[in-house]
């Protein structure tokens, strides 16, 4: 027990992670936008004392075993930029690159397997090395009929190792997230399913097309066209989206008006998906958006799409409503359906958890309670962190031996976290539209 406590205290819990924790355990697993955090992971200003070095090396050891999809899960799960001391940073960066880019002969072979032709046989030009490396594949640039194209190629064997990689990540997840086994298993199935989907490029194209055609009317959004004849379950060919990644773009000091325009496009994009399509691009991390000339937002990477079941949708957003005018009974039912409380809870626990989740959701729902919300308001994020702090230190949560929050919540929370984070990075003020029934 003492050992356990020491561990828990020694693993630093950053603000973001704390925030995630309280948004239900689901968010702990899912809510991370620090996917590419390896390089930025270490806060140089961090006090060494904060980190028990034994623990750090243990965590590093688990991390270094990770590869491919396991790395992706770890990235997804880690809400924490301050996790490792600088000394481990380099090691970890190396671990991330333990999958070096595909050699050109393998690219050729993959093309031959899927199309019976070499890249040169298909395109007018094709870059010999990748322009961008992603976690499960790499992106080349090609041209055909005067068009610039992006060709994404998946590393071989990734799909096949998802399940075994997830087993690898378990001990790490248990430790880092301070979850118990039951809680973890509750979500692993969902994560595994989604990861497997991410490796299916045919499905990705299908969904990209579906969502981009259904969102085509939203102002200031740009979607690439996808080309079936040069795509397969391991290769995706689409239009090249010229422009800058969000971060690069922000470095050019865009005007507030521009930032609001991009922010609004983002909000509208998510509004339409969540409330009308009931399926959502559930991976809002900065690498998946490109800002183009004229403040247009290019959207790539539909690898992770979450379909929102109707009853989950109703329960979840009913709680976000400004004035919770729902009768106690109804509210109980919603909490029950969302798996925030269960039959196994004592009466005392039920009251406590209902209170906590109500508080948390009303805070998360803040942007929905007004017509226009300024995401530059760090105070809002600060309050989320503080509540997270309070809850994660509460003994009721520590004692609880149950997973809380439905597995669908995992990706929906992750999506909203990501969206809020992006909007905060943008320092954007947006019209926070909502469906009629939520007003």
């Amino acid at each position: 027990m003492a050992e356990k406590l020491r561990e828990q205290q020694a693993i630093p819990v950053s603000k973001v992670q704390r925030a995630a924790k309280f948004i239900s355990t689901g968010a702990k697993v899912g809510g991370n936008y620090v996917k590419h955090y390896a390089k930025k992971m270490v806060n140089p200003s961090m006090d060494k004392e904060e980190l028990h070095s034994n623990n750090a090396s243990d965590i590093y050891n688990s991390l270094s075993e990770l590869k491919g999809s396991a790395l992706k899960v770890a990235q997804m799960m880690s809400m924490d930029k301050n996790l490792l001391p600088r000394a481990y940073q380099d090691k970890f960066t190396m671990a991330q690159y333990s999958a070096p880019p595909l050699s050109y002969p393998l690219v050729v072979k993959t093309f031959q397997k899927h199309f019976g032709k070499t890249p040169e046989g298909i395109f007018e030009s094709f870059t010999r090395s990748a322009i961008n490396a992603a976690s499960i594949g790499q992106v080349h640039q090609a041209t055909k009929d005067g068009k610039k194209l992006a060709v994404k190629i998946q590393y071989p064997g990734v799909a096949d190792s998802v399940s075994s990689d997830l087993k690898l990540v378990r001990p790490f997840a248990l430790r880092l997230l301070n979850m118990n086994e039951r809680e973890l298993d509750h979500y692993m199935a969902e994560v595994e399913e989604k990861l497997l989907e991410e490796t299916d490029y045919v499905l990705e194209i299908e969904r990209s097309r579906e969502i981009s055609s259904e969102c085509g009317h939203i102002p200031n959004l740009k979607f690439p066209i996808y080309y079936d004849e040069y795509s397969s379950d391991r290769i995706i060919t689409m239009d090249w989206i010229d422009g800058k990644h969000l971060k690069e773009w922000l470095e050019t000091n865009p005007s507030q008006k521009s930032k609001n325009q991009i922010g609004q496009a983002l909000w509208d994009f998510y509004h339409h998906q969540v409330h009308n399509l009931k399926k959502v691009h559930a991976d809002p991390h900065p690498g998946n958006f490109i800002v183009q000339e004229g403040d247009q937002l290019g959207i790539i990477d539909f690898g992770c799409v979450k379909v929102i079941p109707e009853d989950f949708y109703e329960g979840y957003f009913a709680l976000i409503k400004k004035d919770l005018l729902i009768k106690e009974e109804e509210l109980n039912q919603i909490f029950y359906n969302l798996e925030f409380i269960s039959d196994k809870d004592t009466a005392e626990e039920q009251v406590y958890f209902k209170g906590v989740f109500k508080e948390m959701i009303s805070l998360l729902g803040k942007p929905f309670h007004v017509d226009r919300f300024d995401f530059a308001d760090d105070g809002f994020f600060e309050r989320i962190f503080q509540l997270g702090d309070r809850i994660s230190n509460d003994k009721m949560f520590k004692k609880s031996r149950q997973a809380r929050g439905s597995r669908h919540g995992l990706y929906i929370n992750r999506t909203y976290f990501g969206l809020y984070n992006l909007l905060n990075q943008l320092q954007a003020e947006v019209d926070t539209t909502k469906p009629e029934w939520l007003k």
Partner: protein
Amino acid sequence: MESATTKKTAKKDFRKLILEGYKNHVLEHGTAPKSVFKFAKDLKMKEEEFYAYFTSFDSIKSAVWIQIYEDTISQIESQEVFKEYSAREKFLSFLFTWIEELKKNRSFLLSIYGEGSKGMLSLPKEISDFKDKFKDFANEIILEGKETEEIATRPIISDRYDEAMWLQVWFVFKYWLDDRSPRFEKTDAAIEKSVNLAFDLMGKSALDSFLDFAKFIYQSK
């Protein structure tokens, strides 16, 4: 004149008949034929006719390996980019293409080498012709790699590089025999990773600086 050509084609067909007959026998029975006599009889030929083309069953297996090798080489040489490849890429390209050729004979190879392949420590003797040919190919790559300084020249060790590359070929073969992943994607990954490691080791590295330094210390004692 006329008869000479017919005889020649007939001869060729005989060789092919034996090769195919042998493969079919292995595929259908899961084992090699019991004896040359029995095998020749099944093919409706005399035993001595068999010996005009092959000296033993092993020499048939050897011919299969050579065929696979030669098909691989003509495949990669037909690719435009091959000439532009670095030594590392050439070796990768060879292995990726070779695996595709092996695939066409997978059941046959599994029947012969699949069972107990883990115990296959020493090299089956029918492989040696293929090994010799491969080493010629490997030495061309190594020579080229040394010219471009992709591969470091080291005393004694660098004479064994061809052997090291051969061991890698054999490793890949055994890995592929056990591979159950769709499209043998895991073998692709194994090729990629092992070749990268090998070339990193053969390339100029800390090892060379170390050797150089050691030599210096030794000589200036």
